[in-house]
């Protein structure tokens, strides 16, 4: 378990609230500006940042994150760029990435580079526990948190095995589907969080479909973390200019920060 990550969840618990986790791909809309957007998210109250490694075939992502990834890839965003963004973040930062970029970099090389840039963990949405042997041993050595995603369809037999492979926190996918804002958070989320808690003391964070203060407040009632991604990206895509983008992102972050405090 990574100590910096644990400290954030401990502090949130002391304050009787959930942690707010914000996602933004590195290199979107360009390398320098992605750092400033993340800084605005943190300014507004985001506690933990997921830095996305843009990937050419994001099968778990909806239209908004796909579009951001395409822009980041047009900018030729590299592994070093991702680490540079991680290094620039003032709060604990994880990388969220599909598996192939890690495999291409080499597992040991990737983990060493992330540790050096101050990263606290990695969310791996398409890495199954069956394929994780090398990953688990490399991350253990470097105190890098392993965050796997569990889904409403995870069986009772399988769920404890996936949870057991996690360190840092558990990512509970609120619904069966891809990333992107939804008008309501699926009722399956709470049930899934309760099932996960039977098997672990690790914090459980809920993602997929959360975009508003009201939804954040609702999820914060039963989860330790609320994850928001597409809603931030959409604001950047729609903004008139950079100043407008930074303002809107900060406003949404502060609204969501109120939400996770039950306000």
């Amino acid at each position: 378990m990574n100590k910096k990550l644990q400290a954030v969840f401990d502090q949130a618990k002391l304050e009787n609230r959930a942690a707010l986790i914000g996602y933004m791909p590195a290199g979107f809309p360009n390398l320098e500006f992605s750092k400033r957007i993340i800084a605005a998210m943190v300014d507004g109250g985001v506690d933990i940042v997921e830095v996305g490694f843009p990937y050419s075939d994001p099968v778990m992502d909806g239209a908004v994150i796909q579009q951001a990834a395409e822009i980041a890839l047009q900018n030729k965003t590299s592994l070093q760029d991702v680490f540079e963004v991680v290094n620039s973040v003032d709060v604990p930062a994880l990388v969220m990435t599909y598996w192939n970029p890690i495999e291409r970099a080499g597992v040991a090389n990737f983990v060493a580079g992330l540790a050096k840039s101050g990263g606290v963990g990695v969310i791996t949405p398409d890495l199954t526990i069956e394929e994780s042997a090398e990953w688990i041993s490399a991350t253990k050595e470097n105190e890098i948190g392993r965050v796997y995603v569990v889904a409403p369809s995870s069986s009772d037999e399988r769920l404890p095995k996936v949870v057991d492979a996690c360190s840092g926190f558990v990512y509970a996918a609120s619904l069966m589907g891809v990333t992107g804002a939804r008008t309501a958070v699926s009722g399956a989320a709470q049930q899934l969080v309760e099932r996960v808690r039977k098997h672990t003391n690790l914090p459980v964070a809920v993602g997929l479909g959360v975009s508003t203060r009201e939804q954040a407040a609702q999820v914060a009632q039963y989860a330790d973390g609320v994850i928001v991604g597409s809603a931030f990206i959409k604001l950047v895509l729609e903004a008139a200019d950079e100043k407008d983008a930074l303002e809107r992102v900060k406003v949404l972050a502060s609204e969501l920060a109120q939400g996770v405090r039950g306000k």
Partner: protein
Amino acid sequence: MERTEILGHFGQFGGRFVPEALIAALEELEAAHVAAKLDPDFQNELAELHRTYTGRPSIITEAKRFAQHAGNATILLKREDLNHTGSHKINNVLGQALLTKRMGKKRIIAETGAGQHGVASATAAALLGLECVVYMGEEDTKRQALNVARMKLLGASVVPVTTGSRTLKDAINEAMRDWVTNVESTHYLLGTVAGPHPFPTMVRDFHRIIGVEAREQVLNLMGRLPDAVLACVGGGSNAIGIFHPFIDDVGVRLIGLEAGGSGVETGKHAATIVGGSPGVLHGTRSYVLQDENGQTVESHSISAGLDYPGVGPEHAYLHEIGRAEYRAITDDQAMHAFALLSKTEGIIPAIETAHALAGALQVGNELGSEAILLINLSGRGDKDVKTAANYFGIPL
């Protein structure tokens, strides 16, 4: 020969790299496939469909005039082009459609490049009363407009995919997104031997019938096994289907012909094993066309059905252990063989298949007149008439 096939792995290749949300469905599918393999009722139902609907067994044609250009070797064509819907794809599609019914699902989704797998899926859906949605790259819907119309006539919905390179790879991404969302009601009828376990094994099992029939046919016809078996390789389903029953016949060379596009050295190709490197794409570890950051690189081929930057994991394994060999055939070499077969034998092959025929010209000349070559004639060229007319400057 010792071969490992544990938990969907072929040596270091294969496996499952998918969102957790899909694991339950993959486990359900694996169980259904294993049960069906052992169930005589299922096997009988599939065999009867193949006999009365597909038109199996497919025949062997000796290509004597074509052979004059291939070192006078004996050239035997396994005529999968004569199957209903015009290619080998129907073998897998009928098998998976029957499994879909067994699992109690009522909707199938499929990806398609050239349109052959989409047409076959739409056909099976019509036959068995299933709803069918086909994802097809927008670029491919233009290249293969005739097949789009065929799918619609068969009652399927065709969704043009406008993300990424707008070809097969992006159609697979979109199909996987649909599957994650609708997995309770929907079976993803994947069209090749790629993807997460159990697809590479299951799709191979449904195509093995090609090699099983051909092996016996060649033995009856020639009194011995062929010296080499050749097939084109995109994802690799027709190749693995004809190769697999020959794997233990160590004297039989297995030769896969990949799409070399403008030439592997130009970077504009789809020869994943010849010009790619090990990596993970679409749920499986295999060879991938990728850059230094692990991003998939766009593939290029005149043949929509081979235009894919990945390849089935069992091919990666057969390559690694040296049991099969893989070569790249350029667009020009394929089109030369396309024209040659048409003019010497009166058979217009699919452009995909023409890559295997170009390989036969090479290997026949290497081995000479004593050699027997078995070529999987995986599909017919009706769908490619427009592309070929453009290539050869025939006005339409």
